[in-house]
């Protein structure tokens, strides 16, 4: 069985650009959460979606947005990139708030 799949694995963007990160959850999992992990810190919660509806939002600016599709995959969008957005972005899949499984992450570098 495939685990949580994230793409791309690495990405380099310029300040001010926009980026879209993608996540496919484990088959049967209807909940997807996004986390940002800055180097040397613990992951910080960005969004949680369940059944295509936003169920939680962390303390991130409106430049961050996300959505979940009918097949439960998800996209995280970040507009007007700042140097401080450089981080590992992790997607976690779960049935609903239980047994979170993380993908391998997308390493975003903003230059």
């Amino acid at each position, binding site marked *: 069985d495939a685990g949580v799949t994230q793409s791309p694995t690495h990405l380099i963007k310029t300040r001010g650009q926009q980026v879209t990160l993608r996540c496919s959850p484990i088959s049967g999992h209807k909940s997807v*959460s996004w*986390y940002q992990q800055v180097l040397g*810190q*613990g*992951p*910080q*919660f960005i969004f*949680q979606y369940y059944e295509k509806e936003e*169920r*939680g939002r*962390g303390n991130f600016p409106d430049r961050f947005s996300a959505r979940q599709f009918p097949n439960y995959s998800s996209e995280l969008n970040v507009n007007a990139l700042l140097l401080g957005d450089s981080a*590992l972005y*992790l997607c*976690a899949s779960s049935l609903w*708030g*239980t*047994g*979170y*499984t*993380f*993908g*391998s*992450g997308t390493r975003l570098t903003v230059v």
Partner: protein
Amino acid sequence: ELKVEQNPLFLSMQEGKNYTIYCNYSTTSDRLYWYRQDPGKSLESLFVLLSNGAVKQEGRLMASLDTKARLSTLHITAAVHDLSATYFCAPSSEKLVFGKGTKLTVNP
């Protein structure tokens, strides 16, 4: 707002020794997770603790939960080099809230 404090943040220990990592959290949580992260990698699930007094063991690692004290511990027995990694605790209340992590280095 749920806050999590882990200590120590850095731990250097010799192979064969025992040690405990502590995780305190500020408000009621319905479950608590422990994860391992190797450098540049994602998070690997180690344990999920569901109730007061829960204890789980896997190899040289044992995790426990005291919901009344809002405290979880991760005990390392007879450490080996392969355990070198960063360990995170994450209580959950609809979302995971992570501590800053404990970077463990096991020296020969």
